[in-house]
């Protein structure tokens, strides 16, 4: 005979309701007074010869949830769980310091963890981040392999990154980014701004890559149109990346972004990646529709689609505390 009440008995006795009230009420009050705690829903699919469940992913998550002085994000999906904890300190008018830790776990066994520390004060910005994992990134997110910023796709390993930016003068920024991990290397550039155009020139050097890194970005302050092109050229290296973004072309509050990257010099990321991202205001939240494609390891080309919805939990001007009714 079990000493514990069965589940139906538990509910009937009202214990469950009391239990929910105790845990939901503080949570609801926290949510109601939160800046912009949001729920996000996402579904992704990248056909790879397997079943719908194997090649797709469904995920529900919460973002920007304040908890005991930290900001928490968490997600539950068909592939696994993930959580992120961050804490930031805003220096009024001057900058911000932030620490963020994230962890993701797969149901089938597999763990990813990362820690990132960043700070900006006046003309200096510094970021340090480290990651370690024992399962490939695409097992967590089928579309991650085609992200605009090349991800490390190794099945297991660790990576350390350092990034520094220094504003030399109003129009000149010096930046250096270094990675130690799959394909270690450094990218050092000087950015020069002239009205709506910004030029970058520098050097990228690392394992299997050496070349001049040149780029230009155009930003129209009024319409939000922005376009960028980056070229890497060296004795045995070539790469080309670019993006195009526009606001409000698909209705008010919408944004569109197209990108493409051809980087045959990469050894731990896909060499061809391209995608289109659309975000639209829908009801109280934002709908995102994205399509990606590119090379898939040595197995030719692949593509994937994702749809996501971000719903802020409180009205913009809400200042009332409203406890949830269990």
């Amino acid at each position, binding site marked *: 005979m079990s000493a514990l009440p069965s589940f139906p008995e538990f509910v009937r006795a009202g214990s469950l309701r009391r239990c929910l009230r105790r845990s939901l009420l503080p949570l609801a009050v926290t949510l109601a007074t939160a800046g912009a705690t949001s729920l996000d829903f996402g579904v992704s699919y990248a056909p790879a010869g397997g079943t719908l469940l194997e090649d797709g992913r469904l995920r529900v998550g919460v973002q920007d949830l304040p908890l005991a002085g930290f900001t928490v994000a968490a997600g539950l999906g068909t592939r696994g769980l993930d959580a992120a904890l961050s804490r*930031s300190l805003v220096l*009024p*008018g001057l900058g911000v310091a932030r620490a963020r830790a994230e962890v993701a776990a797969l149901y089938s066994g597999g763990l990813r963890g990362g820690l990132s520390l960043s700070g900006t004060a006046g*003309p200096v910005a510094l970021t340090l981040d480290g990651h370690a994992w024992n399962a490939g990134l695409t097992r967590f997110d089928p579309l991650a392999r085609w992200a605009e910023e090349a991800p490390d796709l190794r099945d297991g390993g660790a990576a350390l990154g350092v990034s520094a930016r220094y*504003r030399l003068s109003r129009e000149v920024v010096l930046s250096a980014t270094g990675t130690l991990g799959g394909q270690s290397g450094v990218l050092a550039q000087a950015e020069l701004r002239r009205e709506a155009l910004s030029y970058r020139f520098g050097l990228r050097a690392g394992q299997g890559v050496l070349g001049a890194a040149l780029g230009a970005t155009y930003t129209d302050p009024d319409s939000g149109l922005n376009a960028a092109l980056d070229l890497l050229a060296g004795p045995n290296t070539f790469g080309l990346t670019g993006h195009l973004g526009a606001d409000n072309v698909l209705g008010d509050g919408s944004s569109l972004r197209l990108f493409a990257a051809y980087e045959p010099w990469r050894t731990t990321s896909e060499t061809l990646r391209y995608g289109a991202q659309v975000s639209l205001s829908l009801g109280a939240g934002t709908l995102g529709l994205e399509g990606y494609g590119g090379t898939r390891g040595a197995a030719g080309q692949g593509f994937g689609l994702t749809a996501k919805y971000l719903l802020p939990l409180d009205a913009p*001007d809400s200042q009332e505390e409203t406890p949830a009714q269990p």
Partner: protein
Amino acid sequence: MTSKTPSLLAAALTLTLLGSSVSQAQTYSATDIIGKLDAAQKGARDLSFRLSGSGSFDGSAQKIDFSVQSIPASSLARVVFAAPDSLADNIVVVNKTEVRNYLYLTNQITVTSTAKMAGQSGVTGIDFSQISNVSALLKNYDVKVLSATGAAGSRLFTLEGTSKAAGTNDGKTRVYVTEAGWRPTRLQLLDSAGKTLADLNVSNYKTNSGLTAARLTTLPKDAEVIRQ
């Protein structure tokens, strides 16, 4: 600077929100001027001006230049920095509940609730939570008319504000107001020893130029948002 440093920008905005009024040959007390200020703040639909001059941060003198646009009725204000270089192109947007700070260097927007920001003036000595909030400013400061110079009708009044907090001697804020049009012409921030920490001139002063809340709150869409 401590968190109790008189808020330079708050003083600038609140004491400068004066609409045009008929100038008369009469003596104005600080209460009178502030009364006009309150009435004018309710009258002007929007306000914009530029503050430029020099200030000393941690002992070294630096050029300061920023422009302010505000819609007083909504307690909305936008500050865009032009100098010093390290802060240039940073934007601060303040409304009733939040302060959003766009950092040009890293393309990030930090979001802090006004409650958390209250009293924090940081390195720049600017208490952004007090912008466009006359009664809040008055609660914390004693304002008096230091002097009135010039001919009747176009006199220049010097208003001085001191922190009311008991036992503090954290310095003063001085605003020079011209009777002709009741516009501020100059702002000074002094420390407890009377040394000038910042000396700024007001220029490009405009009211009712058709500013919209959308224009004041717009920030780059691709910036990363960091909430405190």
